[in-house]
């Protein structure tokens, strides 16, 4: 699954681990939320990633936010927008690590994802086969303004109309 950031395709060295036992971890791993306690036991010193479903109760991992480097949020369907709220909630709860939207996200949702606190999109292969890097980069910048207040750290994102109006009034 390709990783998309603002500049386009990006590299990463994470591995998703669903079923295997975590013996002798030698790579950065992303484990499902249910396996989170397994990885907490691990003393490899490698980065820790957690994959959450979009209906997860993320409050359970809040005490461990400091130890988690990456959280991915599943998008089972692009029509299912729960991940956007979940990302917001994670940010509100104080999570400061990397946040990725994972799965069925289309380029037209990239800007929304970034605005909700996601740092990148790990996109489904089949979607990427039809809409490649150029489509993602184009869609990311198609709307340059936003009405809503902006509490994401997305520097290249749509500018806040509220702030522009305010500065225009000075």
């Amino acid at each position, binding site marked *: 699954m390709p990783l998309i950031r603002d500049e386009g395709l990006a590299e990463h060295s994470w591995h998703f681990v669903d079923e295997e036992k975590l013996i002798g971890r030698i790579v950065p791993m992303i484990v499902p939320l249910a396996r989170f306690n397994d990885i907490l036991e691990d003393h490899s010193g490698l980065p820790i990633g957690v994959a959450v479903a979009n209906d997860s109760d993320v409050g359970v991992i809040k005490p461990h936010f400091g130890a988690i480097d990456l959280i991915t949020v599943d998008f089972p369907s692009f029509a299912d927008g*729960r991940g956007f709220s979940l990302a917001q909630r994670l940010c509100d709860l104080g999570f400061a690590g990397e946040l990725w939207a994972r799965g069925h996200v289309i380029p037209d949702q990239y800007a929304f994802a970034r605005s909700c606190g996601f740092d990148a999109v790990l996109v489904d292969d089949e979607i990427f086969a039809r809409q490649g890097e150029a489509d993602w980069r184009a869609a990311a910048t198609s709307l340059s303004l*936003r*009405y*809503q207040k*902006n*509490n994401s750290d997305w520097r290249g994102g749509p500018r806040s109309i509220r702030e522009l109006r305010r500065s225009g009034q000075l």
Partner: protein
Amino acid sequence: MYRYDEFDRQVVDERVAQFREQVDRRLAGRLTEEEFKPLRLMNGLYLQLHAYMLRIAIPYGTLSSDQMRRLADIGDKYDKGYGHFTTRQNIQFNWPKLEDVPAILGELAEVEMHAIQTSGNCIRNVTSDPWAGVAADEIEDPRPTAELIRQWSTFHPEFSFLPRKFKIAVTGSPNDRAAVKVHDIGLRMIRNDVGIPGYEVIVGGGQGRTPFVGVVLRPFLPTSDLLAYLEAIMRVYNLHGRRDNKYKARIKILVHEEGIDKIRDEIEAEFSGAGGLEVEPDVEEMSRIANYFASPVYEELPDKSAVLDAFEAQNPEFAKWARVNVAEHKKLGYAIANISLKPIGEAPGDATSDQMRAVAKLADQYSLSEIRVTHTQNLVLANVKKDDLHVLWEGLVAAKLADANLGLVTDIIACPGLDFCALATARSIPIAQAISNRFSNGERQSKIGELSIKISGCINACGHHHVGHIGILGLEKRGEEFYQISLGGDATEDAAIGEIVGKGFAHEEVADAVETIVDAYLAQRVDDEKFIETYRRLGAKPFKEALYAAN
């Protein structure tokens, strides 16, 4: 009314370009229809029975005469010369081509209009009182609130892929002309006991397959907390609304299944927690918007108009229109003129491009170039001097828009129904036409008085039949059209869902059935009781007996 600044304009222009690009990607196959569909729906483009249908936003039902003229031009250039005004104060064109839609959106953008979020699983057009800012009974003008919500909800990054559509309505009058109690969120503008303005927040109203009257979520919300509180509601809904069943996906189901207390706890927890995008109330922005809705400069006029009185005395037809279609304005010497889009025997809510131009011209001449659209599918000229009512009426007569039937039995709401809509199970417009023709006699209509008939061509209830005094729902039974009648619905502050009277009726029987119901009312009413009052006093029994006893 609100005027775009450079930023509003840029938002709409960019959206036009974005949609054009999305269409290109669709035609090249890079977007599947499944992926394209929510994107085109968020631009108001449906695929209907005969063709695409474009639903254009008319924010809280307000438009300028220039905008109305542009709609007329679009109707002529890209459609079949007419448009349909809807129960959410929008306008629909039934015959645009996908290949023309980017151009249509471009032409709309030139007059500060768009079709953003008029469909799709997102926050829809915020609706409000069509007499906002001018009604004599108004406590607070709801339009600044509606405009604030409109901007906040446009391309909201968190709430564009909800479980289902989301509808918000605002009223500023104790007489609710915005049907706030049957919306996902209804806002009533009130003052608390020390006079501070705020909102009563009502949640979980709605029609469709499972109608509910909304319940009070928060009896008083200070004005400055509005957006933060709405965000809390939307976040709870987005995360917990059902996504397994399209017919159980609205917030009304969540409220019903979990209970208002549990939902309230979740929302209040969300609201009081740190974070959310709108934590800091934006007092400057609210006041910037409110400036656009300052009262116009009115002339100082006497309450009585000699000109009006003289014409009323000499022209009974005009006098009737003045009595039925004109409402009280807050400013002495002014009036609210209501234009019926329910001429006898015609499709409710339709207007030809020429009629739209006629209304635009009359608005320029007599009502400060502004027009309102009501959720009962009529139009309003909200700032007419009493002195001008007669000459206005003459203009309406010439445009065949002078039917004096506001709120009467022939002021029928009907969805497009099976004649146009891919979701419909039966036709609604011919039913409306049959009833309208049956009751065409003006005196008879006056005698009957206030009676709202609302017709939906399917269970989705776009005709709002659940809240009609007489509601008619068109279904299909064994391949034939079949109509269920309900009584006692109400869309006002006394909101109620109508109750089905009994066995349904065949297409040809509906007008007779309605006449039977009306006759039963006339036989039973006491003094000046309106239909709904008689129904509330007696219940369904006399009507059931009249309809079914003979069988």
